[in-house]
């Protein structure tokens, strides 16, 4: 249980950092591609550290949803003082990122539904 909570927190951080990096890329020191690779390393760690893959899938799915909600709330908070030039480039990016997040979340939930279907 402790491990699951730990990896859930790690993955929430990884997902949220990736979304932040996609939206406000030029304000952070590391390039977006490196953050992606680091996030992949972290998810590899989650898969490696948890015994069963079903657990890993739960952790990844839940933290993805949590990080998505968290990103909406936090990005809204960061954008409280809007910079015109940022908003112009951000609106398009935010739309595409949220569409991608939504699409991936629906695919994941459908997969979960399929995976835990009772077999007759």
């Amino acid at each position: 249980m402790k491990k699951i909570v730990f990896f859930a927190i790690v993955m929430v951080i990884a997902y949220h950092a990736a979304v932040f990096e996609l939206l406000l890329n030029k304000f952070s020191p590391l390039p977006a591609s490196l953050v992606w690779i680091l996030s992949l390393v972290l998810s590899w760690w989650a898969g490696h550290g948890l015994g069963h893959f079903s657990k890993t899938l739960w952790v990844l799915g839940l933290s993805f949803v949590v990080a998505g909600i968290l990103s909406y709330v936090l990005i809204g908070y960061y954008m409280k003082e809007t910079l015109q030039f940022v908003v112009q480039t951000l609106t398009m990016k935010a739309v595409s990122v949220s569409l991608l997040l939504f699409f991936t979340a629906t695919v994941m939930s459908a997969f979960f539904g399929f995976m835990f279907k009772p077999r007759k």
Partner: protein
Amino acid sequence: MLSPVKRVDLRKLVFWIALTLVVMNYTAGVFVYRNYARKLSNAKALCTVRFEDGSIAGKIVVEGFEGLKIRPVDYQVYFYDRRGNVLKMVSNSMFGRSEVEFVTSAWTGYEQRDWHAEGYSNVSVEWLWLKLNLFLPLEVKIE
């Protein structure tokens, strides 16, 4: 030769480094963005215009960029009448100075209250690794 125990340690070290880098990058990004937004929203360009027997004297001041390295590039001021016809346009380079003045002649036949003005200034801003050309509207005050 590395023993198995040592190899596990090395792997863990890589993971922790990855986690630290992600967290630090995120924190730095949030810090930089918030500060940048605060600093830039304090910035403004003021333009005071004075009418003196047949001529227009103006002064443009770019201010409020605390802690940022700025280089004012140029400005444009449009004077127009009540119906929006442009009566005069003044533009010049600012050569990196944040305070410039201009003098131009006013048209006869127009009273002072007929003159309205608006304008903008281009300012290049540098802070840390961020470079930006900011399009700053002038706050025009006619005296």
